[in-house]
Structure formats: C-alpha cells, structure tokens
C-alpha cells in the first residue's frame, strides 16, 4: 500500500472528504428533499374510513378467555351490557370472582348455587340503588365453553331465575349466513 500525504482533517478519525465534496459542487444547489406525502395521506384516509366503519359504540362487553371456546350460531342478536357469568375451565365465575368448581356444582343435589345466588342478589341490589328510576331489566350474559354439560348450565340458569335475572343471554360466536340453518359441518363441531 502506497504512502499518501495526509490531507486536512477535522480530527484524527473524521476525514473532511464529504465537506470538501459539498463545497466543491455548484453553489446554490438546494439539498432540501420534499417528501411526497400524498400516498401516505391516502392510506391514512382509507384506514380511518375502515376503522370508523368497524367502530362499535357498545365497546367490548366480553373478555374472551383463551381456554373458553364459545359455541357458534348463525341466528344471533347484538350483545348488550349486562353482568357476565363465565362457565368454563372447571370454574363458574361471576364478575371475575369464582363461585364454585364445575364438578362440585354438577354433583350437588341442590339446583341453586348459594355463592352465585348471593353475588347476583348483591348485583341486583347495587343496580337498584344506583338506578332508582330505572326498571330492573333482569339481563344476564352466560359465557360458556361449548363443551360444558347441561347439568351445570341448568343450575346456573335456575339460580339466575330465582334471583330475578329472567332475561338470560347466551354469548355465541356468530358465523356467516344469518338466514341459513346450521349445516352438517356446523353440527359436527358439537
């Protein structure tokens, strides 16, 4: 490698080659680059329109749990805000608090689940205190895994009814084709 005469240097590590190049070029040439923002704005507008179309005012009512797979149905209505009872993963849970194990509830001779009944009564009382001018609608949502036995479900339903929650809603995953009957394929999933 030939030995070169050292050029001007800012520091020992930084060569001034770039600065020299720029100075040597034609004076007055602008280095400002204008970004073309039109495609980005187009994309933003499309995204905003899509998100506005899918926007739901009711918000997220149910928190989907990984270990609970909801049953599927074709003829469904829109879900409304109400207390949620979760049956699945071996537990019966209301508003985030467990009221008993599914096996114990299934084996129990009594139809009524005492802990669930107590919590539902409290919820009903709270509602009536907070909304004294409103009629109690008696709505409740049951979010059950698709494999739970009817033995447990009927006890939960019975308890709800005895407390006064008469309007029971089963949370389901809507499948396409609202006017179609469940096909053989859908039936085989059960």
């Amino acid at each position: 490698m030939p030995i070169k005469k050292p050029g001007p240097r800012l520091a020992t590590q930084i060569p001034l080659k770039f600065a020299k190049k720029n100075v040597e070029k034609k004076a007055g040439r602008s280095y400002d680059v204008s970004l073309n923002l039109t495609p980005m704005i187009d994309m933003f507008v499309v995204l905003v329109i899509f998100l506005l179309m899918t926007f739901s005012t009711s918000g997220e009512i149910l928190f989907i749990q990984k270990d609970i797979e909801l049953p599927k149905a074709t003829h469904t209505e829109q879900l409304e805000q109400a207390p949620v009872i979760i049956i699945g993963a071996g537990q019966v849970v209301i508003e985030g608090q467990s009221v008993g194990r599914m096996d114990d509830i299934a084996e129990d001779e009594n139809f009524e689940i005492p802990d669930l009944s107590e919590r539902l009564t409290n919820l009903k009382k709270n509602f009536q205190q907070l909304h004294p001018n409103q009629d109690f609608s008696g709505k409740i949502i049951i979010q059950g895994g698709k494999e739970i036995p009817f033995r447990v479900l009927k006890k939960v339903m019975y308890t709800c009814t005895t407390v006064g929650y008469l309007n029971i809603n089963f949370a389901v995953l809507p499948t396409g084709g609202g006017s179609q009957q469940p096909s053989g394929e859908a039936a085989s999933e059960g």
Partner: protein
Amino acid sequence: MASVSAPGGRSTGGKKALNVELNLVPFIDLLTCLICFLLMAAVWIQIGKISVTQSGQGAPTEQTPEDRTKLNLVVTITPQGFLLTGNGQTIADILKKDNQYDFERLGAKLKEVHGQYPEKNDIVVTSEDSIQYQDLINTMDVCLANEFPNISVSGTI
C-alpha cells in the same frame, strides 16, 4: 410537499409567485391521532347472543281451557337424538344420523309445525344432563331459523 401552482403566475409581471404550499402537517397529525384512537377502541371479535327464558319453574299452574287448545311445543335433546312433542304427544322422534344430530330433519319438522300453527312463536327446549352446550345452542339456532324466536329452556324433562 403538496403545492398548488397557478399557471403563468410569474408572467404577470409581479415578483410574488402565486404558487401556494398547502400545510399538510396538521392534517397528518389529526389523521394519526384519529387512527390511534380508533385502533385502540376497535372491537375485533364480534359476539352475538341468543336470548332465552327459563321455564318450568315452581309448581305447575292450572291450565285454562284456552291453554289446552294451544300447542305446547317441546324439543327434548337426548343422547340418541331429538324428541319433538306437542302437548305431550310425540310429533317426531329424530334419531342421530352417523352419530351426529340431524338438525336438518329437526328444521324440516319445525317448519311443518309452523306451517300448521303460523301464529305460534314459542318453543321449549329441554335437554338431558349430559348434553353439551354446543348441541343446545345448535338446537336453539334451528328453532330461531324456523321462526320460533321465543325460546325457553327447561331444566326438567
């Protein structure tokens, strides 16, 4: 950036150019904020509901003559299949086909019943203890499809 240029802007003699630069920065800011908000508020999983009432509570009430003329339609789900009864009389006994519930036949039978009683819109669905929730939901779905929107679930067969 985005600009609007007027043709001949410079040829009019004045030194001031008529080209206008649109300031897109606030617009992009607004769009970005909107997208962030909508993405956070978006509900990605749509959940539906099937609304039911519980029937068969308490002691049976005395039937009035009017009630007797009405059809008390009940679908019972058993491990063998469906049993469709009206006022205690068997209308159809639909057995499982290939070890799967025959929802198509149940639908056809319900349609037949609805043809005979067009004003009837209530049905009772009952099931044996061991039946899975998905089968119950599928049965109710068939009832809804055949214009029986007023579904009650009974715990006792």
